[in-house]
C-alpha cells in the first residue's frame, strides 16, 4: 500500500472561484454583500427596502432559490437589474454559480446584493466572492437561533434583526441574544429594523455606504 499526501482543502475549488469573483468585483469597485437567513425572515423585503434608499447607485441583485423566480420578479418590478439562480438539488449558492453571473455582467455596478438560499446551515460554508456576510434574524424565529446554528452567526459581519414591529407579540429576549453573541461573535454589529414598516434603515444605509468606501477586504470562511 502506498500513501500519497494530498493536504488539500475540500472546498479549495470553491475558494479559488470565489477569489476570481472577488477580483472581478474589486476591479470594478463593486461592494458585494452575501445576505443569508432562514426562509421567510425577510431577505427579499430587505433588498427591496435597501435599493429604494440608494436611488443614485447602480445595483445588481442576484437571487438564489431552490426553485422558481418569485423573488426575481419582485426585484424586476422595482426596476433593478436582477439575475435568478435556481440551485435545484443544492441548499446554498456557491462561487461557481456566481461566476456564471459575473460572466454575464455587461455594466459596472456599485453594489451587488446576493440573496442566498434560505437556510441557516450550508450557505456560510461557501464563499461567493463577497466583501461581507449579512445575516438576518427575524423576531418570530426567536433569540435562540445563534445557539442552534452557531457557525453562520459566528461568521456574520452584520446582524439584522427584522420584523421588530412584532416584538410586542413575541417572547424574543434581546438580553439572551446579546449574551449568546458575546460568546460567539463579540462586537458583532446588530441593527434592529422592520421591512414591513419601512423603519430602522438609516443605520443600515450608513453601514453600506461606509463599507463601499473600503472594498479591499476579502471574506474568508
Amino acid at each position, binding site marked *: 500500500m502506498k500513501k500519497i499526501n494530498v*493536504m488539500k482543502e*475540500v472546498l479549495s*475549488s470553491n475558494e479559488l472561484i470565489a477569489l476570481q469573483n472577488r477580483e472581478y468585483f474589486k476591479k470594478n469597485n463593486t461592494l458585494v454583500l452575501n445576505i443569508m437567513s432562514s426562509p421567510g425572515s425577510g431577505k427579499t423585503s430587505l433588498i427591496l427596502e435597501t435599493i429604494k434608499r440608494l436611488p443614485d447607485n447602480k445595483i445588481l441583485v442576484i437571487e438564489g432559490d431552490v426553485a422558481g423566480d418569485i423573488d426575481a420578479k419582485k426585484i424586476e418590478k422595482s426596476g433593478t437589474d436582477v439575475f435568478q439562480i435556481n440551485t435545484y438539488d443544492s441548499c446554498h449558492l456557491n462561487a461557481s454559480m456566481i461566476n456564471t453571473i459575473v460572466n454575464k455582467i455587461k455594466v459596472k455596478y456599485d453594489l451587488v446584493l446576493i440573496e442566498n438560499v434560505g437556510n441557516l446551515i450550508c450557505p456560510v460554508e461557501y464563499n461567493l466572492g463577497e466583501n461581507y456576510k449579512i445575516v438576518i434574524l427575524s423576531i418570530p424565529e426567536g433569540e435562540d437561533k445563534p445557539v442552534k446554528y452557531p457557525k453562520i452567526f459566528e461568521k456574520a459581519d452584520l446582524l439584522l434583526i427584522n420584523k421588530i414591529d412584532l416584538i410586542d407579540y413575541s417572547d424574543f429576549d434581546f438580553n439572551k441574544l446579546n449574551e449568546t453573541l458575546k460568546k460567539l461573535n463579540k462586537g458583532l454589529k446588530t441593527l434592529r429594523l422592520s421591512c414591513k414598516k419601512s423603519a430602522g434603515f438609516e443605520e443600515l444605509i450608513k453601514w453600506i455606504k461606509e463599507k463601499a468606501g473600503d472594498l479591499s477586504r476579502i471574506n474568508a470562511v
Partner: protein
Amino acid sequence: MHEYGVTESIINTLKKELEGRKKHKIKKINLVIGKFSGFSPESIDFYFTILKKNTIFNNAELNFIIKDIELECPECKSKFVSDSVFAVCKNCGFENKFNIISGNEFFIESVEIDEEE
C-alpha cells in the same frame, strides 16, 4: 444535504491528484474533519457509498480523522477541548468569545493506493 456537493469535491480533487499515475486501486481516503466544520462524516460516507459505484473509487473507503473543538481563552491563554464553541474557561472562568484553535478543519490529508505490477 450539502454533503453531496462536498463528496463530489473530494472525488474530483482526488481524480486530479491521481492523474497520470500508473495503474492502481484506491483503497483509503484519509479525511480530516473538525467538529465545528459544519460537515457530517456520516452524511459524507453515505453519499460516498453512492457516488463511488462504478468509478475508480469503487474499492475505496473513507477514513475520518476527527478533530475536536479546541479553544483558547483570550484572558489566561489556557487551551482546552470543548463540546461546543460555547464554553467556560476551566482555569479563569471566562465565558465569552474564545479563540478557536481547531475544529474548523476540512481537508483531504492523504490517499492510500495499491499500485498494480
